[in-house]
């Protein structure tokens, strides 16, 4: 049964994506206005994560939520156009790999894994974390991409069921 589940035809075809639109003007306007705000909030959370509350994980999830808002308030096609799967999968790899690379860079130079090579920087500024900002951004990219991939799998099930209903 597991094999059948994996092998069944769920491939996404670009020409078969549904044309859907939100009929409610208020939802549409508010949702579209929220998209840039949400994306900016996500970037801010990731960038200032080690100074103020927040961090790579929270920023990443908020970034992914901004993308999903595109569908919730706009169109599925717009959402898919904004998140091409090749790019998202690449970003997921880069995020996870980046974390390991930062850790291994310390190991290669003779320090323990994830040891800070960049110095402490100035207290309370964006450059105060040494290698922490790099790790933070790696985590943000990884989490955002992973969430988009996850949402994508769920949405595809839903969208496919829309298609087969017609």
């Amino acid at each position, binding site marked *: 049964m597991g094999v059948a589940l994996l092998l069944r035809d769920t491939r996404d075809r670009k020409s078969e994506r549904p044309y859907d639109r939100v009929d409610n003007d208020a939802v549409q306007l508010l949702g579209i206005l929220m998209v840039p705000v949400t994306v900016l909030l996500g970037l801010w959370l990731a960038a200032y994560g080690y100074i103020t*509350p927040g961090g790579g994980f929270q920023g990443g999830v908020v970034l992914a939520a901004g993308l999903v808002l595109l569908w919730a308030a706009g169109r599925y096609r717009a959402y898919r156009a904004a998140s091409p799967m090749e790019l998202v999968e690449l970003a997921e790899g880069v995020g996870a790999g980046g974390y390991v690379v930062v850790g291994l860079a310390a190991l290669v130079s003779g320090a323990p894994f994830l040891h800070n090579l960049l110095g402490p920087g100035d207290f309370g500024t964006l450059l105060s974390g040494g290698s922490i900002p790099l790790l933070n951004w790696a985590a943000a990219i990884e989490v955002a991409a992973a969430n988009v991939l996850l949402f994508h799998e*769920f949405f595809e099930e839903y969208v496919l*069921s829309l298609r087969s209903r017609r």
Partner: protein
Amino acid sequence: MIPLQVVLLVLMGIVGTTVVLARDPLRQAIVNSVYGLVAVLLFVVFQAPDVALSELVVGTVAMPLVLLVAILKVRRKGGR
């Protein structure tokens, strides 16, 4: 312990019970996000803003989305 903490702890218990008592999965998903919101307030009041932010993004964005789509999918299958 300040009064606000007590109020939120009690509220947490009440909303948690409500989540369990709501038998309809769709209703449960919505009440569950209210539960998440109360948890966020609780974390803020107990001075854990980092945890509050995590709970906020996961409880109000990731979980309801995945739950809603899953419920819709199951309902559609069951209806046919």
